[in-house]
Every structure is written in structure tokens, then in C-alpha cells.
């Protein structure tokens, strides 16, 4: 399936990616090529096939609802690009 420029821009927005005007053409071509590869699977009739989400049909393991990790808030927050008073800083969201 061939994509057009508007669709590519929409996908980029959904993925929170910025694509510059100069890149749009190449990105559109590449993605269209990849979708053509993917579309080979449409040639097979799979109506009666049960989808496989996971190679081994396992049941999710549960654990007791207990805190097992130590609190490393300060250490982890040192990794942040910007933080203040124990909070992560981001650009203003509300005016």
C-alpha cells in the first residue's frame, strides 16, 4: 500500500517524531517499500488461523503485592535532563 505525504505526517505525529520538509519524500518512499514487503503476507488465507501472541502459551505469573525495591529516588533523578525539588521539569503545559 502506497502512502502519501499527509499520511506519513500523521504517523510521525502519532509517534511524536518530527520529519522535516526535506526528509518527507525519502521517508515516504522507504516506508512504502517496506509496506510492500509486509503486504506479501496478505497473499495467504489465514481466516481459520488462531493468532499467536507469544511463542509459548504461558499464564502470567503473579506475585504478592509487596514492595521489593529500595527507594532510589535521588539517584534515579540524577539521570534526568532537568529536575528541581524532587520533581521532573518539563516545559510549561498549562498557561
Amino acid at each position, binding site marked *: 500500500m502506497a502512502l502519501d505525504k499527509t499520511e506519513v505526517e500523521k504517523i510521525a505525529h502519532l509517534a511524536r517524531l518530527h520529519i522535516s520538509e526535506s526528509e518527507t519524500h525519502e521517508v515516504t518512499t522507504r*516506508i512504502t517499500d517496506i509496506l510492500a*514487503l509486509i503486504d506479501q503476507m496478505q497473499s495467504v488465507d489465514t481466516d481459520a488461523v488462531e493468532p499467536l501472541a507469544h511463542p509459548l502459551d*504461558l499464564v502470567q505469573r503473579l506475585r504478592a503485592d509487596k514492595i521489593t525495591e529500595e527507594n532510589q529516588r535521588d539517584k534515579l533523578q540524577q539521570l534526568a535532563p532537568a529536575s528541581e525539588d524532587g520533581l521532573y521539569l518539563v516545559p510549561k503545559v498549562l498557561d
Partner: protein
Amino acid sequence: MINSTVAEISAALAAGDISSVEITQAYLDRIATLNGELNAFITVCEDSALLAAKAADEARANGLDSPLLGIPLAHKDIFCTKDILTTCGSRMLHDFVSPYNATVVERFNDAGTVLLGKTNMDEFAMGSSNETSFFGDVKNPWNTEYVPGGSSGGSAAAVAADLCAMATGTDTGGSIRQPAAFCGVTGMKPSYGRVSRWGMIAFASSLDQAGPLAKSAEDAALMLNVMSGLDKKDSTSIDRPVEDFTASLNQPLKGIRIGVPKQHFAEGLSREVEQAVSAALTEYEKLGAIIKEVDLTNSHLSVSAYYVVAPAEASANLSRYDGVRYGYRCEDPVNLEDMYKRTRSEGFGEEVKRRIMIGTYALSAGFYEAYYRKAQKIRRLIKDDFDRAFTEVDVIIGPTSPHTAFKLGSKSDPVSMYLEDIYTIAVNLAGLPAASIPVGIANGLPMGMQIIGKYFDEAKILNVAHQFQQHTDWHKQKSPAITAANGES
């Protein structure tokens, strides 16, 4: 001794012929000499490696002994390593120092291994040539104009060039096996769930699996002994006893049934690789194996289905890189959306962005049925093919890659790069274990043979690989350039 196997180094350490400090220093010297050219390591941990080696020697002096005690290794830079740079080959994490260890790292540490450094890789493990790394291409030690394969290209090149005794890798669609084939080393992707994924930076969670890259099947078995086993921190980790994978290495192969998938010997396979794998099958017949053709009818659909499943899962996994809590953030964002978009566009490389977009598209409203669900159905067909084949044979053997390594920069079109993994991808979709071992050399470059096993039959695969290595010496071949740099026989 740096070109020795882990088993040999382990014996020399136990006998007191060499200390861990000595062998560690030898590898560090070797890295200092060759890494500038090969670019196999992103980070070298010289000081901590020597401290760990000293501790291993002291532990041994105090009576401790275990097969991997004091053995120097490298981890792919996808594994979180506490207080050590962990980049995943990306600008997004170019300054990320992990606050914790991956379970795999923790287990090797507990076994007394010495971490030499972190190896280069395709960005977020997305690539088959190591050319998508933010930290530059890795060069193939056999010929530095060629790629080492990917995504675990740094680990494969490091093992091949004797920059370490062994290395870890991860395999989502062939990322251990294909570089192992291109660099002439032994690599294994275990069954899905065999090795914990905790602390291994996620690409496609239903496919990702960690495994060993080593100089022999025996070494891979020694590594797998340490890596495997239940980890409660990974909900997909399998609760199953871990056998000693070295125990059955010497079992004779008389009567073993080897399946040869006709689809893996069809159009697109180079003559050299076909001849090398055929010669190996003849060798197996001499060892008493029974060769039987098997039919993996839907294997031609594996690449199509994979490029829905893997990007879809990647698009979800990589949504966490938003510039808020860790990792790269763009300069002077004007608002939140601008921060997200520019952080991600500047922090990710082209291939990663492409896959995020494919995955986002496949999961977007109105397309889920046609893409993701369809791919999951194809995945079932592929698994069923293997299940059927394994009622008739014990292992399946074919080429790992259609040809030897290709030249750096020669594949600019993503689709042709994706088709590189044509023989390996189906194994990940089915969750099966498989190894690649050296099977020959053509035009000065190594070739690999893939051995696929039943679920949790890693021991059988390693047995089949080890027996081949007892009767041939392809796994001992080194690039002439590497032998010369060794300055030894």
C-alpha cells in the same frame, strides 16, 4: 593465551599457569591496539576490570573455583551495567549511566567473570550490519572493508579478534547468529524465556532473547550455564530447571535425525555457502546422522510478519524515550510537544525512526486487523511448520545467512537489509533455540551454519555443534590479519 577458548583459559587459571590479572591485562592491551581500527567497544572498563581480576585471583587463592572465575568477557551495550555507560548504540542514551545491573550481568558477576567493556551494536539492536550505531560502524576483523553483521556486531568482532574470551549478545531476528556467521564465531539464541530479559534494553519483547557469542560450542555451553534460569523480575522468564549444558556435549550423533529445510536451499543462497553447508551435512552423515528433507512451507512469509511484529512492539517500547526522566533532551523546547518531537527526532537515528513509524502505522486505528493480527496468524503458521518438522527430526540445519559478509555501505536500501535475515527470523517468531557455528571460508570471509532445535533443547544443539567442532577446525580459523597481530602461533 588470548586466542584460547574459555575452557582452556579456565583450566590454565585453575592450574595456576596464569592469573586473571595477567589474562585481563593481555586483553586490555589487545583492545588498546586493535579497537581503534575495529571499533568493537563503545566503553572499555580498564580500572574496574583489573580490580575484578584481582578479586577473582584472591577468591581462587582462598579456595574458590568455578568454570568462569576470572574469565574476561564483554557485554553488548544493550545490557544495563551499574555505574557504567549503557548506550544501546544510540544518541538517545549516549550519556546514560545505568543505576542497576541486568540479570544477565548480575549472573556473570556472581560467577566471577571480569567485565572488559561494552560492545558496539546497531542502534537499539535494529540492523544487520552494525552500521546504524551512533558510535560508528564496527569493522569485520577478517576484512575491515566489510561489515561484522548485526546487531551484536561488536560482540562478534570482539570474540573473533581475540579482544575478549567471550561476549554476550541479543537476538531478535538473527542478531546473534548472523554476526557470528559473518565473523566466524559460535553464537546461540536460546529458547524464548530461557534467559532473563530484565535490564536488557527492550526492542521487541516477544522476540528478544540474550545469548552467548564464543569461540566454541563448549564455551557457549559454559556461558549458557550461567545465563539461564528463572528470574522473577522477568514475567516471561521460564520456570524450568537449568541443566548442565556441557554434560551432553560428547554424546555420539549416531542415529540423530537432521532435517534440512528445502526452503533454506532455494533461490538466493550463494554457491559457496550452499557447498559449505552441504559438506557439513556429509560430515554429519559420517558421524552416523540421518539427513532428511523437511518442509517449512511458510518460511518465505517470516520477514513480512516480522516487520510488523518487531516494529509494532518497538514503537511501544521506545515510547519511553521522551526526554523527561533520563536520556537525551533537545535544546530549548518551546512546549511539551516540541520537546517530545525534537528529542526523539534528534535522539534516534534513521532506522530506528523508520521502524517506530512502521509500528505506529501497523497499530493505528483501522489497520490493526490487516497488519498486527495478520502477522500474529502468520506467526502461528510458522510455528506450526516447525512443530510438524520436529515430529520427524531432532534438529534442523541450514545456512545462517545466504552469503558471506557484505561491504560496508553497500546496502543503503532497508528492504534489502531486512532480507539479510531470511533464514534466522522464523526461529524468533517461533521462539525456538538456534545456534550458528563456523562452517567454512570463502574469499577470505567466514560462513555460518544454523542449527535449530526444539523448545528447550539447547543441549542437543550444542551437542550437535560440539561434535562438528571435534571433527573439523573451522571454528579455530582466524583472519590472517588477526593471527599476525597476535604475534604468536
